[in-house]
């Protein structure tokens, strides 16, 4: 029990933030096992005890889906972990995923009262603790949302990433029949093919999907909507009353520099898909190969670049360079992951921009880069990098991984007449996710462009509520 003062009030602990137990960087950089081990019960209790249980908890407003953070921490203090899980699951069905990959430092933790003094409550780690507690229970004992009485309506969800999964779960709660269509052979979207095992074990993604199946959500893999079925067919002959589009933004962007099609140049998507989805790190036990570079240059500064760099290291690269054209301050990747990457020996080349990829006999041998300087802030408010004249030099490497972003994949939208998209191909919706087509809703990266897991989930749930209203109003 937490200490109480004479008046019977609880006195929060003044201890520093409880560190996350992590595996040794040298050891972990050689395998794909998880890096962060998660809090033990004692550690979770100690950390929860730092929470002030504020009368006006600012943390909640910092969470994109407004999880009642104060209450779930209170449940931990009472050692009512199942109760804590239930609090989170009112808002977020995937605590074990979000507790691992959400950028908490910019969201709830940045908004925590204690952040002003520098050490906010480790909300994300506590969320993970509860998520893992839940997954450690048998399927029957897990916190399952109630499924509403059968509404008689059928909804199709296209894409099984976080947006689609969140939407499907919510729709089932409202009592609608839900079928999720996924073009790959495995569900999960970026959680499965993009984010590596050492940051998000695939068993966790699988367990979350199993839970949805328990609720009665149907999953159809190997179904490319726009090819195997059109949206019209789903709403026509297949009898779906509404559709949610959550196909993500998976089209890789390349640099547009000479030499980009040399052998040894990968998009981060290809590289990570080979390794994560196809398990190429087990080649030749797994059938799909991936090149194990000796010297690897990764271009980009986001989570994707960090994941690619750390994956390349784990495949046995002697040297991995991270090439980013602004400074570390501007890097969009999570601080924690930048820190992990550094610990694992990734070499950062900041203010450095690729000009050309060079090769011999069709294979990459190096990348010509120039140094950059930060100039005036641009439209995005970030200071834009400018080339330093005469600073050209070559980084020797045999593999280049391009991780400079993704765009909307036009496969579905092109095959769907009447669906309005922006000039860059993203689906246009109102605040609730309604598109230009009646009964068709959308959310996640295909609407916003590459964002985060929690924002995609928030969009999926918002759209589920709008779909529910649409169905019931239509009668």
């Amino acid at each position, binding site marked *: 029990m937490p200490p109480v003062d004479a008046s019977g009030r609880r006195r929060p602990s003044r201890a520093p933030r409880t560190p996350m137990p992590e595996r040794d960087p040298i050891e972990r950089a050689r395998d794909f096992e998880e890096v962060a081990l998660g809090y033990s019960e004692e550690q979770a209790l100690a950390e929860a005890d730092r929470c002030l249980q504020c009368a006006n908890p600012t943390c909640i407003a910092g969470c994109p889906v407004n999880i009642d953070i104060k209450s779930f921490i209170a449940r931990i203090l009472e050692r009512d972990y199942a109760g804590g899980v239930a609090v989170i699951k009112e808002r977020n069905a995937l605590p074990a995923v979000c507790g691992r990959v959400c950028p908490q430092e910019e969201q709830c933790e940045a908004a925590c009262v204690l952040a002003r003094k520098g050490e906010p409550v480790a909300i994300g780690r506590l969320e993970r603790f509860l998520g893992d507690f839940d997954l450690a229970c048998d399927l029957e004992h897990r916190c399952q949302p109630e499924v509403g009485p059968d509404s008689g309506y059928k909804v199709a969800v296209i894409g099984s990433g976080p947006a689609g999964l969140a939407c499907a779960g919510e729709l089932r709660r409202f009592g609608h029949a839900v079928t999720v269509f996924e073009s790959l052979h495995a569900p999960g979207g970026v959680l499965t093919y993009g984010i590596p095992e050492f940051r998000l074990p695939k068993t966790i993604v699988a367990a979350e999907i199993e839970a949805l199946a328990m609720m009665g959500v149907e999953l159809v893999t190997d179904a490319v909507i726009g*090819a195997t079925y059109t949206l019209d067919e789903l709403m026509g002959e297949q009898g779906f009353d509404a559709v949610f589009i959550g196909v993500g933004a*998976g089209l*890789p962007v390349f640099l547009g520099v000479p030499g980009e099609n040399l052998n040894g140049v990968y998009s981060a*998507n290809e590289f990570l898909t080979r390794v994560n989805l196809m398990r190429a790190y087990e080649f030749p036990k797994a*059938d799909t190969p991936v090149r194990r570079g000796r010297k690897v240059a990764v271009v980009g500064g986001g989570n994707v670049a960090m994941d690619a760099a750390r994956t390349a290291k784990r495949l046995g690269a002697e040297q991995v360079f991270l090439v980013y054209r602004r400074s570390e301050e501007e890097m969009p990747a999570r601080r924690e992951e930048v820190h992990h990457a550094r610990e694992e020996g990734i070499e950062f080349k900041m203010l450095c921009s690729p000009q050309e990829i060079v090769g011999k006999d069709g294979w990459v041998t190096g990348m010509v880069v120039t140094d950059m300087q930060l100039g005036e802030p641009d439209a995005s408010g970030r200071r834009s990098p400018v080339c330093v004249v005469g600073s050209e030099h070559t980084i020797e490497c045999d593999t280049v991984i391009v991780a400079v972003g993704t765009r909307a994949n036009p*496969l579905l939208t092109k095959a769907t007449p009447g669906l309005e998209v922006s000039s860059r191909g993203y689906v246009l919706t109102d605040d609730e996710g309604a598109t230009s087509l009646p009964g068709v809703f959308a959310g996640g990266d295909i609407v916003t462009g590459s964002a985060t897991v929690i924002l995609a989930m928030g969009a999926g749930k918002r759209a589920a509520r709008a779909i529910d209203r649409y169905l019931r109003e239509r009668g």
Partner: protein
Amino acid sequence: MFPIVHKRQLSESVFEMGVEAPQIARKVRAGQFLMLRVAEGGERIPLTFSDWSVEEGWIRFIFMRVGKTTHLLSHMEPGEALADVVGPLGTPTHVEGLGRVAVVGGGVGTAVAYPVARAMLEAGNEVTVIVGARTKDLLILIDEFEEMPLKDLIVVTDDGSAGEKGLVTAPLARLCQAGAIDHAMAIGPAIMMKFCAQTAKEHGVPCMVSLNPIMVDGTGMCGACRVTVGGETKFGCVDGPDFDGHLVDFEELMSRQRVYSDMEREADAEYSKECRCHL
């Protein structure tokens, strides 16, 4: 799971297989392809549809045994099932209003030439088919082509064991020379497509090719299949597989097809070892 309903060996290393997949069969058009995985843990590989039946709900493809996955596939029998079949993917071949066309199929590319030639006939074009192989035993689908109302069927073998001796480019050049065709389409090994496109170009005849870059997802998500066409980067799986043969950078395509050669040999060697253990 996708049950196998038909299997036929066409030559020493070429097989035809039919799979129950009614939802895919409804949508296929000539020139499109599928991605399949033989079993859990398997590789995703692309193969072109060679035939399909909307009524009976099956699709067929013809494949050459070249490496581990196609080896595994060649050992599968009706009654068993493939883990995954996805499709139809890619842009259908343009068949309308071409006029007089020569469809050239080389090696296992003949399997792709078959539905393409059929679709071109159905669209009202006059079609000549040129089929080439190294030797007589590797020729496939000759009976099927003979049943089609083709303008002509020209068979070519490298060693002269059947039809003309030589390369497919010789009859193609003749047709071009004679002004007998308005369009050419070449499907086969990259090197053959390169020379067909070159031959057609010399005579000012447009030439389409059906490219076979390495693919992973087949839906535009990974960028593995990128090819340079007219100086621009295109994705083989969604922008193609058909492209204007006069604009394709074939050297790059051939180089990129070799990215995994050494690893493929390794996988195949491991697999053969396992195979022997089971004997």
